[in-house]
């Protein structure tokens, strides 16, 4: 769907014998297996295309769902082959053939039932509203879309954002209940349900009459800005779509918000969806630089070359042990900077990195820091 037949063919041809991005594939680095590298996947897909290997071999699904699809191999690739889109395309073929892992179907079922792919309780936005005392303004120009990551894994981002809106008396609206935007389903290759979710969200935004939607989750921002239209779910004409970091930058500049400076040493983890798919490297840094008295201590692997913390590719639903190891590695890179705070800009990343937080930097989401600075 996202690669033409020709692009798909060229990407398989480019990847199948090329070992040049092994170092950029986090899963290959963790599992130490060629089969989990871009070359291994390229060769596998070549063999499947030509009937040398069979799609129904359980190893095929196992390999294709072991990838963060985080765009980092392509970032290093001088030929710019879109390896990760190739993997997502292959996952889609597995879904169509009924050969995807059970976890994929379970995630889809949970999304349809609860609005989130993650197991366990999902806190509804209205509960967060009650907790913070924030009031929704029906028909407001601004619509807040929090995303499943914030609702299920790291609600502190929502609470902080609602408190900021209340403190600054910014009228806002929400979609209640808020559906999943479809990003996890797209990454897992369930395009039909991803399209359904995208269309639902798009329709509800149109119905709300909002002029701007602000997204708290980097993955939702990627889905809205790069995938909605291609899933047949165009957003209302004229709607402004802002990631929360961009929105803050604008509000601070336009409304002259006064911010208290912090003195800690800090580093910043670029979520893959911002680092490579929407190229949003600088707004979070500009915002954070205005919150701190010190410049950032950049991590090994930053901006376009940032390593995935483990949140990408729906891997937390299919391969949690690899996700845990990826988070540990990313946290270690943050620790190596000597920073006291590890700031990120997406609730999913904040949640994962918090889970592996050790005696190094304290993990915070950018929205929490803005709340504390106001």
């Amino acid at each position: 769907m996202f690669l033409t037949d020709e692009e798909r063919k060229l990407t398989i041809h480019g990847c199948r014998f090329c070992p040049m991005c092994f170092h950029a594939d986090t899963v290959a680095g963790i599992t130490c297996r060629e089969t989990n590298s871009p070359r291994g996947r390229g060769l596998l897909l070549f063999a499947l295309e030509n009937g040398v290997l069979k799609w129904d071999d359980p190893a095929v699904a196992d390999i294709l769902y072991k990838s963060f699809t985080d765009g980092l191999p392509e970032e290093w690739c001088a030929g710019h082959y879109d390896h990760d889109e190739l993997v997502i395309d292959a996952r889609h073929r597995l879904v169509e053939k009924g050969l995807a892992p059970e976890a994929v179907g379970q995630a889809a079922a949970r999304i349809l039932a609860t609005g989130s792919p993650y197991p366990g309780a999902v806190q509804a936005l209205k509960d967060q509203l009650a907790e913070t005392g924030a009031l929704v303004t029906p028909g407001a120009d601004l619509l807040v879309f929090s995303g499943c990551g914030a609702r299920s894994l790291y609600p502190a981002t929502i609470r902080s954002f609602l408190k900021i809106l209340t403190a600054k008396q910014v009228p806002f609206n929400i979609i209640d209940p808020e559906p999943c935007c479809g990003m996890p389903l797209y990454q897992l290759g369930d395009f039909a349900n991803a399209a359904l979710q995208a269309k639902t969200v798009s329709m509800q935004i149109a119905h709300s009459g909002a002029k701007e939607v602000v997204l708290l989750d980097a993955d939702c921002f990627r889905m809205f800005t790069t995938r909605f239209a291609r899933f047949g779910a165009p957003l209302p004409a004229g709607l402004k779509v802002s990631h929360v970091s961009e929105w803050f930058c604008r509000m601070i500049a336009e409304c002259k918000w006064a911010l208290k400076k912090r003195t800690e040493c800090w580093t910043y983890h670029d979520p893959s969806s911002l680092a490579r798919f929407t190229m949003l490297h600088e707004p979070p840094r500009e915002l954070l630089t205005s919150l701190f008295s010190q410049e950032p201590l950049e991590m090994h692997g930053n901006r376009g070359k940032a390593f995935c913390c483990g949140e990408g590719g729906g891997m937390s639903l299919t391969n949690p042990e690899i996700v845990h190891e990826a988070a540990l590695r990313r946290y270690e890179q943050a620790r190596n900077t000597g920073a006291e705070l590890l700031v990120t800009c997406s609730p999913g990343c904040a949640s994962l990195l918090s889970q592996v937080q050790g005696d190094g930097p304290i993990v915070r989401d950018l929205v929490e820091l803005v709340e504390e600075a106001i």
Partner: protein
Amino acid sequence: MAANELLMDLIKNELMDIAGRDDVSTSEVDRYVYSTDVYWIPRMWLDRLQGPALPDFVVYPESAAEVSRILKVANRFRLPVIPYGGGTGSQGGTVPLYGGIILDLKKMNRIVRIDEKSLTVTAQAGINGQVLEWELNRRGLTLAHYPASEYGATLGGYIAARGSGTLSTKYGKAEDMVMSLEAVLPQGDIIRSLPIPSHSCGPDVRQHFVGSEGTMGVITEVTMRLDPIPEERRFRSYLFSDLATGLEAGRRIMTHRYHPCTIRLYDAPSTQKFIKRVLGIDADGSFMVTGTDGSKALVDLEEAGIQEICVSLGGHDLGREAGETWWKQRYDFYYPPFTPDLPELFGTIESTTTYDKILPLYEAKKKAIETGYKEWGATYTGHFSHWFPWGVMVYDRFYIKRPPHDAHEAMELHNMIWADAARASLVSGGILNDHHGIGLKLGWLMPEQYGPAWQILAGIKKMLDPNGIMNPGKLGFGFPG
């Protein structure tokens, strides 16, 4: 290997007992993926849907002790063992010709010690080259080994294939950087070479494993010399009217005993083909990049001396920009679609010789390719990228745009060209290979190259590996015993 299912299951269980259940694979997908490296023949073989040479097992050991136990099992069952690092080799060194065990060493990826006083690093052999370099760079250090395969290759692979990097002219080849190593002998003994490379204690055991391509044992840990990241590294480029003048410039730079970190001289066809395509520079003649690094004072001095030599020979000084661009994009040449790829038939037939013989060697190979295979439209390009105090390496390639589609015919043509090119090197005073290794590709020419001296290598191999289990069919050694 022809074996019954019962026997294969028994062997698998023994391997699992050693490496763990999850670290032994017999899956069809794993076996297929490990059937090739970057060598043209196995790639073409897969591309044309021929049945590949498959391993029976892929095993991922985590320690020298596990490797030792695996080799004992392999000896008992007379099972070939193919050590596998990054699979970035271009000579077919990891192709499991006779099946057996692919021993993927990438789980042995620990840095054991960094000695910042002596400037050495000790690491397990399976560590990825770029990951190691990143760790060193954090401490202001560098291995200074920058092969095009750096992103995929492993430390053990660097050593096992006598690899070379883009700054080898100053820092040496990987083999020059090895202080000491640990290896597992084919029958399972774990040995260490002397702790330092410079001594008067007889022939150097270390050298039996450097360049051994997995035929003498398994390299499991290596101590390497390091360098501090230089204060300054600067590149400059020149355009010469012809190759001979460029070669003379390089010779003068080296024999004046300057220490450039790189000299990279492209012949006219490469200047046209690659420099234009990758760097966007459209020029006739021979393009040369030079690099100097160290303290600013040293770089100023060396850059001026090199510039004087190049300009005095009529070299047009292109300034720093093109050279800096080359450095930043030095690996881009090796990514598809910039690197040669199927269905084209191609091969890198590099060789090294002394300054007095290098131009005739280049011309002999060019003639062997372009005249000998004229009916196939064969073309030939070369660049000169690893310079020594006494000579230089030519990194030359042949290309045939439309080779036979039939896999057997394509392989026959490929091997005929290789034989002619290799013999042209040997007759001209060169060697079979400078830094890609021998592998499956050139093994059959090793006895011819060495002559009576071959018995020394063959004798050592026989003594160390009486059952011939270690990477059979490579480096000129025979078949499983």
